[in-house]
């Protein structure tokens, strides 16, 4: 009898191969993709109400995108060889595409869009600051200091085109992560063509919720008024995206239950036992139904601003818990049952080892540290105020 194992596992299956770090990877890239989609609402779809969060959403996406490869890197047995994925990618491997999708998204989409959006501010700051800050801003202008209305018009046009390219790129960034799991035919918990679509919508849900929370928190910290029409609009988009996401997940569940193929009994037992807390309690009840109810209530009734803020904050936090639980259930849940469908193993998270809880927490805090530096360097507020004025 092996501790933590019930029934029969193939002997090499007892040990889980993908740890909490691999849970972080889709969670973080999801936040990136979601935040970018929210930013594009204003830029491409002309949803002016969310304008105050536009820059914040871009910086959130960048902060998380910079951290996205780190959990993967830390997880590799030989991180020093990871460059081989760029140099000698295996064309049939979905994972080999990661580096290219990531680089495309980082350099072609996000950095260009942020630079174009901030260029006039950067030029202004390069002129108004002194010392080290001046050197930094001067370098960030990349030698382009023309901020005439004509030049700004070009910035705006190119920025629009980049955002238009960025939307499918954001879809690709996270849909691709779903494909990594969905294309593994050996694992019935993962193997579904719905996986990339579910990942995509859950990414949008988490990214929208994260930016909404960050915006409210930032306004609170700065002692400024929260733009309620903006938050109301974000909450509405969160609600509708969440409804689609939940519908897709339920479609998957109903399809599995109705079809009841050879893996069903095994997976069903797993959900009712080892995944009960993380799947049913955290993901579905607390992380989906409750925030959906809070958001739906705001669609039906008009509450006072203060109460709305409290409800949105609760809904946002619960949503992020729910989406994290979803990533956990996909990654960890997919390794808890035997591919013989005859047994179950368990995941014991270590604390301070390379793939333990402490590095995972550090990796989750790192984007916030980067975000803090980014908003110091490229304040997202002035533009919002200018816009209001």
């Amino acid at each position, binding site marked *: 009898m092996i501790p933590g194992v019930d029934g029969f596992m193939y002997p090499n299956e007892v*040990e889980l191969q993908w740890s909490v770090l691999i849970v972080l990877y889709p969670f973080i890239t999801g936040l990136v993709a979601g935040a970018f989609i929210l930013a594009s609402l204003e830029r491409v779809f002309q949803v002016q109400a969310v304008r105050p969060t536009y820059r914040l959403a871009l910086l959130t996406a960048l902060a998380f995108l910079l951290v996205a490869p780190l959990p993967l890197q830390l997880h590799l047995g030989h991180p020093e060889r990871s460059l081989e994925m760029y140099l000698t990618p295996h064309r049939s491997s979905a994972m080999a595409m990661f580096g290219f999708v990531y680089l495309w998204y980082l350099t072609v989409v996000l950095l260009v869009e942020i630079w174009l959006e901030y260029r006039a501010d950067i030029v202004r700051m390069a002129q108004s600051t002194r010392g080290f800050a001046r050197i930094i801003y001067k370098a960030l202008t990349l030698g382009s200091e023309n901020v005439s209305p004509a030049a700004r018009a070009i910035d705006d046009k190119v920025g629009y085109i980049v955002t238009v390219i960025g939307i499918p790129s954001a879809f690709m960034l996270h849909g691709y992560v779903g494909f990594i799991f969905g294309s593994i035919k*050996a694992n019935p918990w993962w193997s579904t063509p719905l996986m990339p679509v579910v990942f995509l919508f859950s990414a949008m849900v988490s990214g929208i919720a994260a930016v909404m929370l960050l915006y409210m928190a930032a306004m609170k910290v700065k002692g400024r008024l929260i733009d309620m029409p903006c938050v109301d609009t974000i909450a509405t988009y969160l609600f509708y995206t969440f409804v689609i996401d939940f519908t897709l997940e339920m479609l998957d569940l109903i399809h599995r239950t109705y079809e009841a193929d050879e893996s069903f009994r095994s997976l069903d037992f797993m959900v009712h036992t080892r995944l009960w807390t993380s799947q049913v309690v955290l993901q579905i009840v607390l992380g989906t139904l409750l925030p959906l109810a809070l958001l739906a209530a705001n669609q039906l009734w008009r509450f006072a601003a203060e109460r709305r803020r409290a409800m949105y904050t609760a809904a946002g936090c619960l949503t992020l818990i729910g989406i994290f639980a979803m990533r956990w259930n996909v990654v960890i849940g997919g390794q808890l049952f035997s591919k013989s469908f005859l047994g179950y193993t368990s995941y014991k998270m270590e604390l301070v080892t390379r793939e333990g809880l402490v590095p995972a927490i550090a990796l989750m805090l790192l984007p916030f540290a980067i975000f803090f530096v980014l908003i110091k360097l490229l304040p997202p507020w002035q533009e919002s105020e200018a816009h209001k004025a």
Partner: protein
Amino acid sequence: MEITRRDMFQMGGKLLVLASVGATLEQITGAEEPPEAYRMADHWWGMIIDIDKCIGCGNCVRACANENGVPKGYYRTWVERYEVPEGYANPKVSSPDGAIDGFPPSKETSLKSFYVPKLCNHCADSPCVQVCPVGATFVSPDGVVLVDKDYCLGCRYCVQACPYGCRYLHPDTETVDKCTLCYHRITKGLTTACCENCPTGARQLADFKNPKDPVHEFLRNNKVTVLKPQMATQAKVYYKDLDGSVR
């Protein structure tokens, strides 16, 4: 003593005659011919397993571990004991430490019981090869799925992709490890360590490209299948009389 040119010729002549006689004698007594160079294109390796012959002794698991330095707790091959009630519902399956020490006597006497040796199926359409991001795992031209441990990143995507649970991360090298079908042996004309040490001949190395290999007669005369045929991996480990309960 002074050695003249005549002495040199005479001595050389005698040595030549001796060497010729020695060489002729060696040929007459049937000394081993130099081995032909191994040509990968002439082989297509796999294995045949006769379920009814396996007695669950674990010799194959021990031989494999010794031959290949398999770390404790990980398995390039293992043996499962199936105890199946009527029909296929809820078979009781066990493989204590991969059966490296065989099996304890069963407490079940009324159930259908048999042993199933498992190893990498060396699939021709291998999902593990498909997903490797750098091509560190590959199918050799002679049909063996191998891992280049100097190239493997240790991402373990292949471990997830293998439907049969045949791969693991080697704790020392931190690269993926698996059955190589004793590639270092079969390319020298030897069989695998597991086949060599199977006391009943339940496992036999098969070269599908060799017309004289007994595998052809075996496949002609027996009902065979591969594990999880629905995975369509073109597995090359064929099982004779495999029960439908086996996964």
